[in-house]
């Protein structure tokens, strides 16, 4: 800071305490995330892996890793990740909105709300790996689910869930849905309850049916929370690993249609291929950055308040005035 010429005015500045309090956070971040990130980017330009007991030393290869990455199935895995995320996310949002609307609709007087809230939130606490393992055991070819379906006559022979693309993807989506819809419902309920009741009464007076009230009043009012849920879920979706990894034991079978980005990264990390792992990480980093900036800017309501959309503007037509 430039030395001010007049004598140092002795006023108590707490600024140094501000720095002190945020220091641990930033130090831990630099040591455990920033430096590793820098290394990841650095090694992504090297051929550096361990084959058996011999380490093939870091030799610079420029963009080879990235070239190899793009003629590999990276885009397919990105597609898988997005499909698996959306297949779980869309039902999650729909059901959560439905439940939030019902739970907060004073007309419906649903009893046992607290019980339902406790039950639907429970899957969120379960270890993803345990959930996946449980589903693997339950949905295996002669597992309990098949046995039940066959004994109930719904199926004549066991359906091979884990051998069919739709089956495996469906299971991953179902698990993600079950694990997260409780959390989202409670969040949305809190947001809806945050709206002042007189707004709903005003809407009712204005002639809104329950459905119209939901879409024209409730939904716009809880938009900030919806944006928050969308972003956090998208980040979670991109990081999806535990469930598909354990359900298919890392193979992403059948036909690698369930291999997600992080599983692909994990395969390289597991076989100590730091070069490729670095490349995958960097591309993933870029994708995350783009998606988040995209979502953050155009969906965040506070940003676009000023530019009122065209059709809302009031057009005073002179001839209509008859006083």
């Amino acid at each position: 800071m430039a030395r001010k010429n007049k004598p140092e005015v002795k006023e108590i500045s707490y600024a140094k305490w501000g720095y002190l309090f945020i220091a641990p956070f930033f130090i831990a971040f630099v040591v455990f995330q920033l430096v590793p990130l820098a290394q990841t980017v650095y090694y992504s330009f090297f051929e550096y892996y361990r084959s058996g007991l011999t380490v093939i030393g870091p030799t610079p290869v420029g963009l080879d890793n990235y070239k190899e990455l793009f003629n590999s199935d990276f885009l397919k895995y990105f597609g898988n990740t997005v499909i698996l995320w959306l297949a779980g996310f869309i039902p999650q949002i729909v059901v959560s909105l439905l439940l939030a609307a019902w739970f907060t609709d004073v007309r419906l007087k649903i009893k046992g709300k607290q019980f339902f809230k406790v039950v639907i939130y429970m899957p969120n606490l379960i270890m993803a790996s345990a959930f996946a393992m449980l589903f693997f055991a339950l949905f295996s070819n002669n597992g309990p689910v098949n046995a039940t379906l066959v004994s109930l006559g719904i199926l004549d022979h066991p359906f091979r869930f884990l051998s069919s693309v739709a089956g495996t993807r469906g299971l991953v989506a179902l698990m993600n849905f079950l694990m997260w819809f409780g959390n989202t419902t409670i969040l949305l309920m809190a947001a809806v309850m945050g709206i002042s009741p007189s707004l709903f009464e005003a809407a009712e007076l204005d002639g809104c049916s329950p459905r119209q009230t939901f879409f024209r009043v409730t939904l716009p009012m809880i938009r900030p929370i919806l944006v928050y849920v969308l972003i956090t879920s998208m980040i979670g979706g991109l990081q999806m690993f535990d469930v598909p990894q354990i359900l298919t034991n890392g193979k992403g079978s059948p036909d690698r249609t369930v291999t997600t980005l992080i599983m692909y990264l994990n395969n390289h990390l597991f076989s100590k291929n730091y070069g490729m792992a670095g490349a995958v990480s960097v591309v993933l980093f870029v994708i995350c950055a783009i998606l988040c900036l995209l979502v953050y800017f155009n969906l965040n309501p506070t940003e676009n308040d000023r530019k009122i959309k065209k059709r809302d503007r009031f057009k005073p037509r002179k001839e209509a005035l008859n006083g």
Partner: protein
Amino acid sequence: MKKGFKAVLSLALAGAMIFGMTACGGGGGEEASGEAGKVLNIWCWNDEFQTRFNDYYPEVKEVAEDGSTTTLNDGTVVNWIIEPNEGNNYQNKLDEALLNQESAAADDKVDMFLVEADYARKYTNSDSTMNIADLPGVLDATSDQYEYTKEVVSDADGNVKGVSWQACPGLIAYRRSIAKEVLGTDDPAAVQEAVADWDKFAETAQKMKDAGYFMLSGYDDTFRPFYNNDAAPFVEDGKTLNVDKNIMDWVAMTKDYTDKGYNNKTSLWSDDWNADQGKDSKVFCIPACTWEIDFTLTGNADPDGTKDPAQSAWGDYAVCVGPVNWCWGGTWLTAATGTDNADLVADIMTKMTTDPEILNKIATEKGDFVNSKSVIKDLAANYEGNDFLGGQNHYALLSDAAEGLSLKIASPYDQGIIEKMQAAMKDYYDGTVDLDTAKANFEKSIKEIYPEIETVNWPK
């Protein structure tokens, strides 16, 4: 203000670190609690050798309740480190330990580790394993062992780097009850007649299907007989992978069997594959090598260990050689370079793999095909028969077959390659993908697991 502030900042960092360290000091966990005596670390991927060691090694004093350690008479504590094989997990963890073998403390050093045929060459060609010749009195004791068991663990210039207590000729284990019902007899010679070659095997499979049975359980059951008779190893120069024509024959046959409903569409080691070896399973036979009889078949056929034919498939199995001679796996003991208990390792090796009296007990009680020609000849002559196999003396059947076995086709990468081949082809058999996609998937997974392999060649 500037200087003071930096001091405070570093203080905060140190504080955070110390706070973190001391807080989870407990997390470090203490080393294996052994008394004053030395510690012997043995790495393996299952408890097969551990059970035989605990039962038959004379020096064993007592076994820990949770089975994690065994204490010997002279106080040495044997620490069993078990890591599953699948997905190269065992190899990765073992490599990690071997790489910092020098820096590791005496008691943490890897003393002995087991290897399977599929990746034996990876370790025998490296200097992480000691020459058996350097271990006192072990090499000459192995004169009576089958040639192939030494060949597969010899390095480029012929030094033997490992020993095994068993040979694993492959055979076909079949259900006596189903054989009687469909083929009219369960006599091993007659059944061998019906499966003498792959054409006869297919005919019998059709008979089985007509009678409402499956010939085989899974896709991978017939892999080993084909793979074992490949012309050359998968990888020889460390860069290119040549898929043998034999493998593609296996693929074609299995696809054909699946479409015709000869097999029950299971995968190796999956729980329905295990169930197919149970009492009320519809599967006629399963290609199995000798260690599989004790390790897998007995466990699956008689899960509750009743040993009673009424409640389980105990005694309902018999074996014959099958269409081709083949072998699978087997476990070799190797001494890790830099071990601090070399002579104890040597003693374990000699006793467990060459002492005729121990080998005889292993053979009779565990049903292993032990790696000693003399013991096998003696068993072939007067062994009264294996109770699990309904009294059949399978040694007589296999003693000459074992002479002709060979594992020259083994390469250091086989564990990963075979696993990825089976996984890729499973989608093809299920009909989820066509053959070319399955091949492409195989190549992709090889690129991930073995970056050094650049090209994969398929036979014309």
